[in-house]
C-alpha cells in the first residue's frame, strides 16, 4: 500500500450499499422473474454472491448466478502481455434473461464492454443491467451503471481497491494515491 491511503467506504457502508442495490434491482425489475446475476472476476463475482444473498433474504428467491472472466475479451493483449486467464462459469441459459452484470469498480468502461461481448457469446439476454459498488469516473466508452453503490471523484493516477476477506466477503474500499 502506498503512503496516502484513505477509506472511502467502510464496512457498514459497503453492506448498506449492497443492500440498497439489491432493493433497487428488485424495484426496477418488479420482482425476480427472469433475473440472473453474473459477476466479473474476481471482485464482481464476489459482490454478485452478496447481492444474491440479499435478494434471497428479501424475496426468498435464489437467483441463477454466474461468473465471467474477461481476459480473453480484452482489447489490450498487445500492450500488457499474457494475463492469466480465469474460468468463465455461466451454468444457465442466458436467453431472454434479465442479466445483472456486477463489477466492483467502474472506471474506463472497457472491462464492461468486454464482459458484454462475453455474455453475447453465451446467448441473447433480454436486457443487461450494470451494478457496481464504486463508480470512479473517467469513462472511455459510452457506458453507465444502472445501480451504483457510491460515486467517487478520482484522478486517473489514483487507485480504488475493494478489499475482501478470506471468505470473499467485502470489507471496505480504499482510495490510494
Amino acid at each position, binding site marked *: 500500500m502506498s503512503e496516502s491511503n484513505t477509506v472511502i467506504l467502510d464496512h457498514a457502508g459497503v453492506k448498506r450499499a449492497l443492500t440498497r442495490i439489491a432493493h433497487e434491482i428488485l424495484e426496477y425489475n418488479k420482482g425476480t422473474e427472469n433475473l440472473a446475476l453474473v459477476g466479473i472476476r474476481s471482485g464482481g463475482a464476489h459482490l454478485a454472491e452478496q447481492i444474491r444473498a440479499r435478494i434471497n433474504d428479501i424475496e426468498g428467491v435464489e437467483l441463477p448466478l454466474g461468473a465471467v472472466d474477461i*481476459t480473453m*475479451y480484452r482489447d489490450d493483449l498487445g500492450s500488457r502481455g*499474457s494475463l492469466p486467464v480465469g474460468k468463465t462459469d455461466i451454468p444457465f441459459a442466458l436467453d431472454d434473461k434479465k442479466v445483472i452484470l456486477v463489477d466492483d469498480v467502474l472506471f474506463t468502461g472497457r472491462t464492461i464492454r468486454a464482459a458484454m461481448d462475453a455474455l453475447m457469446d453465451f446467448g441473447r439476454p433480454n436486457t443487461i443491467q450494470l451494478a457496481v459498488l464504486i463508480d470512479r469516473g473517467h469513462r472511455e466508452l459510452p457506458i453507465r451503471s444502472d445501480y451504483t453503490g457510491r460515486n467517487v471523484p478520482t484522478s486517473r493516477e489514483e487507485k480504488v481497491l475493494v478489499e475482501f476477506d478470506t471468505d470473499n466477503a467485502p470489507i471496505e474500499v480504499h482510495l490510494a494515491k
Partner: protein
Amino acid sequence: MSFRHKHILGTENLSREDIELILETAESFKEINQRDIKKVPTLRGKTIINAFFEASTRTRLSFEIAGKRLSADTVNISGSTSSVVKGETLEDTAKNIEAMAPDIIVIRHGHSGAPHYLAERVDCSIVNAGDGTHEHPSQALLDLMTIKEFKGKFDGLKVAIIGDIAHSRVARSNLYAMTKLGMEVRFAGPGTMIPVGFEKHGAIVCDNIEEAISGADVVMMLRIQLERQANTLLPTLREYARFYGLNPEKLKLAKEDAIVMHPGPMNRGVEISTAVADGPQNVILDQVANGVAVRMALLYLVSGAEMVEE
C-alpha cells in the same frame, strides 16, 4: 506471473511454473470448446501459419481449430504442396513466409532442431508441432492436462511409456516435463528401440513391459511407426504385439484406477489391443479434446510474451 517464452520449442526449457501456467490457461480455455458459439476474440487480427512439412491430421487440425477459436487467421501449408519440393531451403521458405508478416509459425518438420533453427532467424513466434525424433511439446502438455484431470496431481505418479522410445518425440517431451513435475517415468520397449543414456535424464529403463506397468498410475503406449521402423527394428509385428502390446491381462498389473493413453494414430492389435483401446480405462479421446485447449493456451501465451520482452 507472466509467461516469458516467445517460442515453444520443447518442454526441456520450460520450468515447472511455466508448465503449470500453460495447463491452468488451457483449463480456462477448455470451457470455450463446450459453448454453442465456440469463438472468443482474444487473438483477433493475428495471423498464424501452420507449416507442416511432415504428415499430420490430428495435430494440424488441432492447431488450426485452436487458432480459429481464438479468432486468429490461420493458414496451412504442407510440405508436399509447398515450394520445398522445388528445392527451396527451409530458411528461405521461412523468410518468405515472414515477409508476409505472420505473428506465429507453427511448424512440424522431419528434421530434429528445425524449429530451433528458424527461431534464431525469424522475428515471429515459433511453436514446435513435432521436430524429427526430438520434441513434440504440445503433445506432452495435453498428456499432462489429461493426467491432471484424471489424477488431480502430478507428484509421485508412476508413468510407464512403452514402445519405440528411440524415435519418439512424444516420449522425450513427456520425460522432460514429467520429471520436472515430480513423476516417475519408466520406459520399456525392444532393445533396438531404447537408446542408451536416458537414465541421465531421470528415466527408469525397464527390461520388459510387465516391470514397467506394475503399479503404474498412467500407461502410455507409443505408436509403432509401421512406415519406418517396423521392418528393420522388429522381427515381426506379431512378436511385438505379444511382448510389448497392451492387452487387458497386462493392464491388470497397473493400478486398478490406472489410465491408458495413446498419442494416436493407433495401430489396433499391434501396440494396443482393441479391448484396451475401447476399454473403461482409456482416456485417448480426452487427450484429443484437451489438445485443442492446450494449443489455444500456447498460442495465447506466446502472443503476449512477445510484448513482455519489448
